[in-house]
């Protein structure tokens, strides 16, 4: 069984994550679009922290017999991977758009120069 202290600390950490993300959205430093995965991470971790018997069950499924909280780490790590992968696609898109912008700007500048 998961030690109670571990559950409490994990729950607090998840709540802090959720609150920080919400505050970042509120202060317009994070767009809703890019916050959804973080919020999902926080909610899933919070659920697994509070639902202690569930954590044990899941630990059983994946063959973790000695220390159920390892599931928390595994799930947390999985979500961080997902977020990183998502951000890689976002950066790629931004990179492409940046190229288009630079090209448009250069072409416009050239047009202006030849006219003036």
């Amino acid at each position, binding site marked *: 069984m998961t030690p109670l202290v571990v559950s409490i600390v994990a729950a607090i950490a998840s709540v802090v994550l959720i609150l920080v993300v*919400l505050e970042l*959205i*509120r202060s*317009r430093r994070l*767009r*809703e*679009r890019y*916050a*959804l995965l973080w*919020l999902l991470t926080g909610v899933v971790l919070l659920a697994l922290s509070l639902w202690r018997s569930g954590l044990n069950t899941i630990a059983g499924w994946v063959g973790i017999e000695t220390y159920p909280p390892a599931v928390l780490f595994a799930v947390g790590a999985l979500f961080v991977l997902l977020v990183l992968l998502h951000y890689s696609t976002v950066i790629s898109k931004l990179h492409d*758009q940046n190229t*288009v*912008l630079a090209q*448009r700007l250069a072409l416009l500048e050239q047009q202006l120069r030849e006219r003036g």
Partner: protein
Amino acid sequence: MAEVVTETRLPRAAPLAVKRIAIVPAFNEEESVPAVIEEIRAFDPDFEVVVVDDGSTDSTAGAARELGAHVVRLPFNLGIGGAVQTGFRYAFEHGFELAVRVDGDGQHDPAQLGLLLGPILADEADIAIGSRFRETPGESESYRSSRTRRLGISILAWTVSLLVRRRITDPTSGFQAMNRKAIALFAADYPHDYPEVEAALMVHKHELRMTEVPVQMRERAAGQSSIGALASVYYMVKVMLALFVGLFRKNVTPLEETK
């Protein structure tokens, strides 16, 4: 004496003199955009039309230019929020006092613009929104839509109505008319992606006067709806989150008049 001659042009009646613009966001709508432009002119030839081409890969921009509309071409697709805000910025920078939004897909019928313009010209509202679900007397519900979409819209309508403490029946409607006060606000700050629901909350927080007017909308003339199944789920979650967080957000200052 030449100056005097230019002065002799008859001034129009006050409401007619209002400098007005129709903002037409369009993404790959080459088939429907020309008709939309012509219908706007048929309703009122004094409307300037600006087509915001949201990174189309077809000849939307060319078709609009052929009809003499102003065309602002975005270098890539910004989504409906970014496209419409481009139109608001255009309207603000060019000194328009009245703006309407008519989508390029043909679902908004320009012949009904009069219904939207009424409250604005009478200075009873800063923004008028055409609602499909507010029944006109003697007419029953005419807008056909999938059951899930209707359910989604009702959930949003219920939530927004609760937040702004008044009944909003069609919070996703983009068929709108507004005065310069609202143009200045939206030019400074407009929600991303699918903006209408969040914009309703913004309008409430900025204490602008908003009114809903019953309108009929048409089936899309051509092209694809911008919202698919998976996107709908994202849309609902994102908008609910934005509404909740938006309640606690600081207001952005509307753009200042530079004179």
